[in-house]
């Protein structure tokens, strides 16, 4: 066991129940876990299997070698410490900017520029002309820009009239 993991195990042992999956946030700020009490602690990253259709279920925990430590069906089934640690990581891994209003949509030669206000602040981004916003299962809209960043419009109907007008082209 490395020095890092011994330290991380010590963190995880606080309030740990023997046998089950344990997760905790290490001193280094990363998510650590072990599948059973006898396993070595490993730093893991979270991978949502259904980020849009079932965002709060089915989370794969993968280590540095991309091996699956565990598949969490429902995070709420975990103990409080593990759930809290997992939720912080899920928030980061699942983060996408939320569009609150649209200032302008400009068509250019091969790209389309959106100027928007997001929950995170104002942002301009570009999509390819043929990269249409994708409808989400819950009725929202997801836009992917040329760099790969994602922008969600959770409920287009709640946008202001001008934003809805600009978005009209892209929604059914």
């Amino acid at each position: 066991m490395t020095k890092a993991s011994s330290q991380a195990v010590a963190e995880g042992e606080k309030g740990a129940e023997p046998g089950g999956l344990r997760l905790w946030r290490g001193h280094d700020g990363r998510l650590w876990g072990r599948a059973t009490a006898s396993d070595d602690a490993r730093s893991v990253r979270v991978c949502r299997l259904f980020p849009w259709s079932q965002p709060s279920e089915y989370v794969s925990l993968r280590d540095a070698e991309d091996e699956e430590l565990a598949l969490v069906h429902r995070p709420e089934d975990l103990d409080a410490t593990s759930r809290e640690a997992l939720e912080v990581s899920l928030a980061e891994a699942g983060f996408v900017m939320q569009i609150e209003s649209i200032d302008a949509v400009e068509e250019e030669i091969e790209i389309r520029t959106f100027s928007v206000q997001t929950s995170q602040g104002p942002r301009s981004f570009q999509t390819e002309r043929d990269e249409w916003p994708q409808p989400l299962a819950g009725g929202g809209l997801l836009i992917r820009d040329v760099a790969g960043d994602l922008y969600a419009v959770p409920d287009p109907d709640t946008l202001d009239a001008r934003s809805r007008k600009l978005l009209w082209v892209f929604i059914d």
Partner: protein
Amino acid sequence: MSAAASFDTDRKIIERYTDQPAWLPARVRAGIEEDFAGDPVQLYALADLDASLNLAETWVALGPNRIALARDEDDAHPVVRSFPRTSIREVRLEPGLSCSTLCFLGDPDEPALARVRFTHRQRRAMENIQFVVEQQLDGRGVEPRDADDVYADAVAAPVRDAQALVASNDMAVIWRLLSYLQPYRGQVAFGMVSAAMLTLLSLVPPVLSGWIIDNVVNPVQQGSLPIDEGLRRAWWGVGAIAGAYALRQACAWARLRWMAVLGENVARDLRTELYEHLQGLSLSFFSRKKTGSLITRVSSDTDRLWEFLALGVVDVSLSVIQLVGLSAVLITIDWKMGLVMTLPVPVLCWVTFQQGERMNRIFLRAWRKWSRVTDILSDTIPGMRIVKAFNQEEREKQRFDARNRDVTDEFNALHRVWTTFWPILMLFVRGMVVLVWVLAVPRVLGDSPAAVTLSSGDFVTFLLLMTMFIAPIDIIGQMARIMNRATSSAHRIFEVLDTQPQVVDQGDPVRLEPVQGRVEFRDVTFGYDGVRQVVRGISFVVSPGEVIGLVGPSGGGKTTVTNLIARFYDVTGGQVLIDGVDVRDLDTGHTRRQLGMVLQDPYLFHGSVVENIRYGKSDASLEEVIEAATAANAHDFLCKLPNGYDTIVGERGHTLSGGERQRISIARAILHDPRILILDEATSSVDTETEYKIQEALDRLVADRTVFAIAHRLSTLRRADRIFVVDEGRLAEHGTHQELLAIEGGTYRRLCELQQELTGSRDAARPKLTPIEGATT
């Protein structure tokens, strides 16, 4: 494009398209360099998300000895926190949907040295920092090129790769485009004069009609002009109208013919210039741009410019003149009625423009839905076997039907809009005509002859001129769209024309006649970007006629080595020499004529087999072609084809199997007779029997040439004199097969063992077939 021009382009892209600085702000840089005790910032990136995942501006800067995190705060000294590079034990990138985290980890018992969060837009710049730190941890030093340049390149890349730069001034682009008319100025002048005459002659029939009424019809009816004289004048007038119409049509013909031919000539000139320029550009340009985008520039964009030059330039300018002229004439005839007609014109132009914008939006929506229909087609037609195998025909029919109905609804909405707009617009114009009538009737009739203030002839002239208002309003309404389309296309074309090849011959280059085939690498380093080196300090000497096998893991740098020999790219450090001369001093075209390539995915051009074999030597005799095909083991299968060597292979040779295409490409290389030959995985992805035939053909091809053969299947390297193992951009091992096998724990030995294991397990897994009694084969 030169490095300075490229940086300038990237900076403009960042300024125009993103909300972030195009370089590290001077104040922040000064603060960081103060913290670095005067050391310069070598590399930097922007962390645009804070710990709460809100948009923020924290700079991560790399110095020779330290890494700093800095942010500028209003009216205060920048806040800088730094730590030594030597304190980093690990750097880890944790990717997310839109937020990635870069962790700099130090001592295991300590908190992370830093965790920075950023969106994908910053990812390339952050990965550059991660790469340099990882290299340092591996004991390798990296000297990045100019920090501003690397940052701008990384941030601008997604937009730059997605489209042409549109940052330059639109009018400058239009003027540059019009300069292509210079060689045809005689034709332009003729076309413009024809168009001007056309406009003027259009005014003649209405004016003459009014004159006939006032000077012939009315006087004859009132008895003040004898009928014979009236008839004489009338026939002259009608003849003049007929002449004006005939002359007008002649001008229309001349204008259309001249300008259409002129536009076509300019489009041809642009296509030729563009294609010739593309041929000279370096491979790095083609790896950046999508093939479809380049094809569109040579085809559709030049076609759009034809439309603009042939019709747009003249139509738009003359429409403006026509509207101004008509307004002046109408106001001159009668200012009150003239104002009734002319005052609404700006409104009509604006309404037409707005209508165009609205139509664009509706069309865009319909286009989006249309792409959903074509998505199904491009999914299901190539995958029809799967659709049928899973019995999903009904589901696919329903999916298509739903989308087809959806797109039809959109197009119907589009038709509803334009079919409503034009009748309403025309109704408005007719309303103006009616208003003119309302104003004119009392003045034409009058209570008494003295009260008649408008002659019936002037009124008729007025009515006829009014009908000429609609066409120019329509054209002016579309002017913005026409100009926008033309500048867009021109931008895309000029972007290519302004790109300079990165591989350029020196003045008075050396010609090796003939090339002997001695290849030397002297401490060669190379990177596709300014940071990552894919070849690191490789040195070797290969004698003429030697066969070198290049092996190693994927991405290790094997293909890059061959690309540097062919001078598809220039080294960033060291030298590549052929026959003792630096390839940068050689005549590249002349050297490449003595260099051949057989690639993993052999590329055949649309055309006959014989044309493809002759590609490198167009004057080869048919006997030479057959000889080359025979040596390449292609002759026998070509004889089985109904059209023999005249068989058209289709686009990229898709009508032939992979092995057949490969043997034709070997025949092409044999006929080309190169002194240096590069074989890039030439026998991969073919069956054993075909591999044998190809290998046999290759054995003939490699004789007496210097050969660099990249191979994953080590069995194909049996003829290699020496084997170079290229791993992580370095020449990890080199020697003969036996020498390399003797290296305990060596990469080559490990690869051989792995392949033997794989072959053994495949043989073991192969089912043992028991002959069935009585069965015949």
